[in-house]
């Protein structure tokens, strides 16, 4: 049994708009394990992204507790969370979120400039197969390439965890598969704990563990005994 890296205890997240209270998370208990690739599945508004943001230290839970290794994230100040993100977490977003005024290499350097023990930006871009596109601006790259830059940026700091929110959501299936292959490669090569949010049920088949969300709660957790390679996934 691998070590636990994340543990949550009854976390809730309530958005109070004044007139109504919306429960994005309604009491979630979960455990994630070191080196695993976990897929979070569920319809829009089921609380996946909210959970991911809380795990990544981007957002605070309304109630409940979250531990990363043996550190309680829910007790951390904003400053502590910033350091936590800087040292441990890599993010990949649906819309890549590259800085348009920076080239691929510079977008990665944005991270390597502040991380404690980063790999060179060139190496990170080489890992995602963009060694020859390093000096291109985002506007000069395809969506798949941009997403791979985003992944390179996320892994350049050698994070312990990689959090991906709909990484293939804006991509066609061919480029989507390329991106998933990179994610799986990183996960296997570096043992980086990876959490992937997706709408796409097929992607679950590449995960070690699949967690289903419904109405702000975990409805089911499943462990895959057999995993497919991304190239075997069709959507």
């Amino acid at each position: 049994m691998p070590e636990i890296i994340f543990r949550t205890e009854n976390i809730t997240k309530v958005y109070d708009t004044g007139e109504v209270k919306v429960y994005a998370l309604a009491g979630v208990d979960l455990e994630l394990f070191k080196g695993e690739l976990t897929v979070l599945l569920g319809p829009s508004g089921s609380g996946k992204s909210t959970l991911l943001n809380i795990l990544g230290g981007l957002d605070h839970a309304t109630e409940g507790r979250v531990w990363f290794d043996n550190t309680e994230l829910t007790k951390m100040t904003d400053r502590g969370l910033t350091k936590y993100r800087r040292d441990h977490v890599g993010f990949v977003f649906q819309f890549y979120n590259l800085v348009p005024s920076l080239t691929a290499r510079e977008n990665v350097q944005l991270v390597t400039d502040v991380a404690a023990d980063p790999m060179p930006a060139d190496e990170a871009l080489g890992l995602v197969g963009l060694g020859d596109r390093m000096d291109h601006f985002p506007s000069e790259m395809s969506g798949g390439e941009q997403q791979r830059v985003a992944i390179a940026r996320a892994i350049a700091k050698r994070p312990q965890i990689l959090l991906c929110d709909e990484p293939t959501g804006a991509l066609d299936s061919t480029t989507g598969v390329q991106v998933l292959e990179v994610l799986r490669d990183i996960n296997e090569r570096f043992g980086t704990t990876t959490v992937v949010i997706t709408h796409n049920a097929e992607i679950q088949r590449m995960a070690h563990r699949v967690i289903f969300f419904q109405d702000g709660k975990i409805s089911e957790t499943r462990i895959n005994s057999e995993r497919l390679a991304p190239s075997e996934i069709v959507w």
Partner: protein
Amino acid sequence: MQAIDRKLFRDFQRLWLQAIAIAVVLSCGVAILLTSVGMFVALSETRTAYYERNRFADVFAHTVRAPLSLVSEIAQIDGVAGVEARISGTAILDIPGRTRTAVGRILSYPEKTNPVLNLPLLIQGRFPDPAVTSEIVVNAPFAEANNFRPGDSFSANLRGQKRSFTIVGAVQSPEFVYTIGPGAMMPDNEAFGIIWMSERAAAAAFDMTGAFNEVALSFATGTNTASVIDALDDLLEPFGGLGAYDRTDHQSDAFLEAELSQLKGMAAILPPVFFAIAGFLVSMVMSRIIALERSEIGLMKAIGYSNTEVCLHYLMLAGLIALVGVLIGWVAGTILARSLAVQYATFFNFPYVIFHVSYWVYAAAGLAGLATTSLGALQAALKAARLAPAIAMQPPAPPRFKRSLIDEAMTKARLAQSTIMILRSLLRWPVRSLLTSLGLALAVASVIASIFINDALDEIVDLTFYQTNRQDAMLLFAEDIPETVLEEVRNLPGVLQAESQQFHAAILRKGHLSKRVAIDSRRPGADLSRVLDIEGRPLDVPPGGILLSRRLAGQLGVHAGDTLQAEFLTGRRETYSLTVTGLVDQLLGLGAYMDLEYLNALFRQAPRLSTVNVTLDENQIDDLHRAIKDIPRLTGIIEMNVNRRAFQDTIEQNIVVMNSIYISIAIMITVGVSYNAARIQLSERARELASLRILGFGRGEVSYILIGEMMLIALIAQPIGWLIGAWIASAMTNAFTSDLYAIPLVLKPHIFAIGSLVVLSATLGSVLIVRRRLDRLDLVSVMKTRE
């Protein structure tokens, strides 16, 4: 260079036009601060150094004739460190090759030692040989204007004796940094000069052997000026003392002081306005950038940049704008300071000039620019810092609109949807719309507040030269002489009309307040020199009292009907209780008027005069000049049209420069405000406008929304600008009011029109530049932009 810094520079490159527009406004503030503070420091340092090195006196006094033995008594006054007594007089000069007369102020130069005080500084040649009474030195500007070289000579009419003098040198003196002839309004170095001659020559010319008629004192530090002045007045009183005064009443120093306080005023009023506008523009632009870069901010935070780093990143962007503004301001300020220094060099006669702007002034102006820009950016940068990363990654919630009474009114008015869009956008961000309006209003105000001066000065010229002083020339006599001389003047060539006038130095006292004035008296019905009220109505001075200008009455704390003490320093030197028979509003001077006949009766004397006002036949002016060069006791002639021309020329030169500066400033402010406002609007509305284009709106219809909103804001700015402009103009007229003059507040409709025209056209120009971007709007990509 770190990646985040590279982002900073690329963002700056992308925003360069907007950044420059702001930077230019900021640079105006920096440049003006640099110029005014720099020149203030330079001018006052130069003055201090010059006064110190050449021992400019602290107190001055004139008397009719005092024995030299009095000097040792004066030296014994408590606190007096140095005494310099000398002989002074005025003479009409006959300069070869010059038809018109020039006037010289003659001063004696000690024979054995150097002067103790008011040391002239030799610029050229040498000082006069005491044994050669025909040798003189003249002030350098007079020598320069008349092309005098050592060895040149001219003659002077010294109390009826025509004497020839040889120039042996040119000097400058701390007493004559600013030289203006008697009765003149502007310096005329060609027609008025200062002449130093040996004591012996001066004594012979003015019948002053063993006597003096001018004394200057210096103090030990910490001396009470008032008590020294009182003691000196007491000592001089039996010898016809005309009242001692300190540096504040010294003509040359008073002009320098006025210039210094104008620089101080400029430093205090203008730069803050520019800094405020630049700060506002930065705040407006930074808010928009932060709105646009919302997801990038989220990203930076997600990958571990701290709130402080994010905040600093945006502050540095503002810092870059400030840097450009400060650099432009430094360059412009240096050029401006240099041109002002050149102007000072022609206006003020300093032997050396410490006209460099110190490094600390550069540093202070730069820091002030940087600080205001940062302050403007701070709110937006803090907002970026505070933005929670998870929220920043999501698109912002659409702005909330609520139906209000105004909406119902708009619906009822059946306005076009595009007009409703314009109005609603103004109402959605009322503070921003109002501040933008205020920025443009300040531009309007800056035009109004500068060009109203033209009309004000026109009014001054009209009232002074065409209404009050209608004579062509004034003939000045050495002392009060019988009015019978009027007949002789009438017989001079070219004189058409002659009227007498008397001036008497007097101290007016009311309670503890007192003021040294020249009491002006003339015959009732005098037609050439008249007393006018502010509306231009001629007044006859009521006999049996004194008529005061309102400014003078204010300084003495008297009202019509009050009684004051008039201590005459001329004639029998008697003191009379006079009733203030009326107050008159006037633009120039501190007028005090008495009826000539009443004055003669009071003095128990036959009619006398000290000045004759004449009108002249233009064709005989040269003959007149030839004739008066030989009239004894005539000490000077003031030609009003020369005066008028000099005054108008100086003003016109200054006004053209000042108007161009202020109109450029207004345009810069307008472009800075409206270009940025329009760019922000376009960026906020790009999606909306592209949608309209997709729905089939034409370019013109879409442009209408962009241009319409900006022009509406500009229109709203007009009345605000008129009000602010009128207010600043009135504040300026108050600030410029001194003992010497008041600026009338003349606000004619055309200056408001000019202000509005300048600002509205600059706004239209700026918004049209932004409008071109509408043509380049890529409809498809805009629709794809997430947000």
